[in-house]
């Protein structure tokens, strides 16, 4: 029998349904892998082997009783610790929420459990999803399972969904939830040789997901294949009346709609993404991607997204502004950490609690956000940023008059070493240069593995689609996946 931990969502679902193996066998195999890897990779903040087994038992029982099985029946997954899970600690990787045990379940996680998935544990992440390397977690760095040849230096799994990407690449789970505010699904997927899709803003409910930047946050699946992403996105997505920004649209059958033919499709190549001094390996993988999509029948057209260079500065005004307000609720009054120095008044308690509870990157972003919203600066920063954001969205609209999807690199480089950029916030922010524009425009975008760079580290290619056209994105992703033939996996050293 094959190693169950090498299987993806579709294989597990089909195998459980066919009786090739039981859901409990699958859960046990992944529970063991999780336990074995935890000391070295630190991908999880808490593990929940019993929850995985309970869900598996229910699926096995349902199958034995001849009941219909859900889309994700028997598939154990990792849950990014940004999703509130009832009765299981939910921290956003911050000390300020240490010990917080929600009395509620996020809509997305509930949808997944309803589809028959089980939870292996809560995955580590950058604190409040702020970071691109998973170095801002209060629960320690996540170590990528990937290493450079003949080098044991720990590499970043990307961020903020770094626990998710590391766990999937290391075969600790077949799939995991991610959230993407400026690239937090796509960049870690690219860094670890897996796939991930951020759907159109509003497809997945934000209810019960710890907020970072409300107008940008969007949940999505991370897995090892495009098909698995399609299956899991179907399970996660759907209208939620509890989220005012949720899209009231039926969930398409993305898995059934998968079609790798690009005949009659036009693929846009944004001129402005071709940066001076671009990493040659990244440039080459982009060229490979263009060739593969051409091979799949697509017509390649050059498009222009003239405001691209302003996307990151726009993002670094809007996201911190929203975050500074979203994170005001962590005040030590109703839940989470309370730091009450002797004789402190209410306002002192707030300041002490928040100083002790938030990590440096979170504080930095709250400070920036507070500043750009403050009296006298609001228009110059925030209003200007929302205008530029409108221009960025318009760039995409105009580009999509000439193409169906856009192809670009996911990240400017392959994974870097831990500590390499953590002292320079700006250098770290630049990692999201290719992923942030689609976030600002709310568009669906995915990263698929494209190959390895000269160091032997994975590179990702990004497909950006029009609003609501996840199918087009997945199909282009599938065409790339089939031609890239990416089979590399990190050698097990943990």
């Amino acid at each position, binding site marked *: 029998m094959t190693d169950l931990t090498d299987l993806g969502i579709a294989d597990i679902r089909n195998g459980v349904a066919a009786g090739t193996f039981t859901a409990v066998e699958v859960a046990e195999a992944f529970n063991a892998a999780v336990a074995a890897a935890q000391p070295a990779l630190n991908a999880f903040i808490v593990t929940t082997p019993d929850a995985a087994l309970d869900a598996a038992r229910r699926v096995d029982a349902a199958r034995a009783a001849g009941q219909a099985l859900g889309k994700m029946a028997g598939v154990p997954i990792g849950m990014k610790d940004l999703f509130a899970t009832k009765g299981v600690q939910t921290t*956003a990787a911050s000390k300020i929420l240490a010990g917080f045990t929600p009395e509620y379940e996020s809509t997305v996680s509930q949808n997944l459990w309803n589809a028959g998935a089980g939870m292996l544990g809560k995955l580590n992440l950058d604190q409040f999803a702020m970071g691109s390397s998973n170095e801002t977690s209060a629960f320690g760095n996540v170590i990528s399972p990937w290493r450079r040849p003949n080098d044991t230096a720990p590499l970043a799994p990307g961020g903020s969904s770094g626990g998710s990407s590391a766990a999937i690449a290391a075969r600790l789970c077949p799939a995991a939830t991610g959230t993407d505010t400026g690239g937090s699904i796509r960049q870690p997927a690219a860094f670890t040789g897996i796939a991930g899709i951020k759907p159109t803003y509003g497809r997945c409910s934000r*209810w019960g997901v710890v*907020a970072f930047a409300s107008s940008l946050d969007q949940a999505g699946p991370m897995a090892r294949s495009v098909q698995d992403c399609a299956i899991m996105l179907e399970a996660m997505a759907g209208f939620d009346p509890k989220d005012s*920004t949720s899209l009231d649209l039926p969930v398409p059958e993305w898995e059934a709609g998968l079609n790798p033919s690009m005949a009659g499709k036009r693929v846009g190549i944004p001129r402005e993404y071709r940066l001076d001094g671009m990493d040659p390996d990244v440039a080459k993988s982009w060229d490979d991607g263009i060739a593969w999509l051409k091979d799949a029948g697509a017509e390649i057209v050059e498009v222009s997204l003239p405001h691209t260079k302003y996307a990151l500065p726009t993002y670094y005004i809007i996201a911190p502004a929203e975050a500074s307000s979203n994170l*005001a609720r962590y005040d030590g009054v*109703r*839940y989470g950490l309370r730091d009450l120095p002797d004789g402190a008044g209410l306002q002192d308690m*707030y300041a002490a609690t928040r100083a002790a509870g938030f990590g440096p990157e979170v504080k930095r972003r709250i400070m920036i956000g507070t500043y750009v919203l403050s*009296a006298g600066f609001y228009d110059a920063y925030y209003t200007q940023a929302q205008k530029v954001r409108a221009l960025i969205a318009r760039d995409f609209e105009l580009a999509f008059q000439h193409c169906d999807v856009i192809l670009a690199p996911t990240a400017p480089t392959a994974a870097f070493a831990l500590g390499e950029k953590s002292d320079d916030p700006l250098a770290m922010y630049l990692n999201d240069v290719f992923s942030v524009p689609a976030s600002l425009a709310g568009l669906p975008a995915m990263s698929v593995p494209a190959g390895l760079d000269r160091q032997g580290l994975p590179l990702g290619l990004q497909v950006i689609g029009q609003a609501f056209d996840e199918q087009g994105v997945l199909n282009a992703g599938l065409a790339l996946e089939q031609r890239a033939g990416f089979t590399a996996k990190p050698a097990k050293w943990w």
Partner: protein
Amino acid sequence: MTESAYRIQGATGEWEVVIGLEVHAQVVSKSKLFSGAATAFGAEPNAQVSLVDAAMPGMLPVPNKECIRQAVRTGLAIDAQINKWSRFDRKNYFYADLPQGYQISQLYHPLVGEGHIDISLDDKNPDAEVKRIGIERIHVEQDAGKLMHDQHPTMSYVDLNRSGVALMEIVSRPDMRSPAEAGAYLRKLRAILRYVGSCDGNMEEGSMRADVNVSVRKPGAEFGTRTETKNVNSVRFVMQAIEHEASRQVDVLESGGKVVQETRLFDPDTGTTRSMRSKEDAHDYRYFPDPDLLPLELDDAFVEACRASLPELPDAKRKRYETALGLTPYVAGVLTAEVETARWFEALLAETATKQGKGEEAVAKQAANWLTSELFGALNRLGRSLEDSPVSPAQAAELLALVADGTISGTIAKQVFEKMLESGDGAAAIVERDGLKQESDTGAIEAVVAKVLADNADKVEQYKAGKEALFGFFVGQTMKAMQGKANPQVVNELLKKQLG
């Protein structure tokens, strides 16, 4: 308004006071503005709190349609511009009664724009001396929770039951110039809200409270620096706060000081205001559009449905009472000042017209006069309000019908009404039981009249000699002899006839 204007007499001369009011009115709704928790008053602490109201991580607001509808109806009732595109902003500050760390409010694009309310200071003639008070805007926002400071030696307790309840903030222009004008404005606003049904106007329970902006200036000069006295919860207190704050400011200015723009607190026990220490640090609310919510877009159909659902409002009703029912401006004003009074009056009017088989205009004066004198007098004595009046409009109409058809006289009607109040019995039953029916039989009265004149032959002589004032004496004697039950008109006619 006359130019016998309100002035504060200072050492350096006269000062004028400038007043603007920001009224927070709790919207009548079953559930909160952005959550499904209940709004009812007086629940156990934190029993009416959802995870949204407690600002748990990942919780999101979903707006309540009824709250929007009520705010639009209120806007229409003050002739205001309804903004079909508005949006919610976050007002960011830290306080223990504010779980989110921000209040969802509307700064940049309020739901309701410019409107106005007409006030009058002359109760006798509400049509005279009308002053128009501008209303700058009405926006919808969340209420905060409640802090209790007296339960524990070192702690304050937080109750979030009110957290997230919908408020309308109704912001006036600084158009008022005296405590009396501010009082009239508040009473009129409260009446309109209660007519519309968008706020119960209950100031004791905190469903209506005012932030009072006061400044002083020499008449005709530029506006002075204003202070804001927060959360004043009765009309009387608002007037007191203005009086105190205005003279305090005059004292400060006349002793060479400067008025500090600050938030103050009103102390009802002393009738004074004081600076609010906890809110002193410079605020920077960092308003920005709430990214959890989309812009609020209303269509014409929604606004028109709101308009169609509006009742007749106090000014229109008063005018109609004057023109269609022929009531005096004063009486019409009294009857329309409170929605309950108008409602009671109209029920009485309808019943009275039906019982007497006449048009409403024909019985309006009788009904209005009885209500404003007899019923109000009785309620006053009994210390009761119209809502728990011991007689119903139908019972009252029965009484009025007995007067109108001559069954009893107006004098007897007063007695019957007293008995109704005491026993709760119907007017007709009381009249029947106690034999209070008026005597209109000419023969019977004629006999009594003849006897009265015979018994007082000397006075008849004097009358005939020109002392006509004695006519009243004969009437009185006749009525007395008949225990007040004689029809006074018949008595008059017969007396005139027999006295020749």
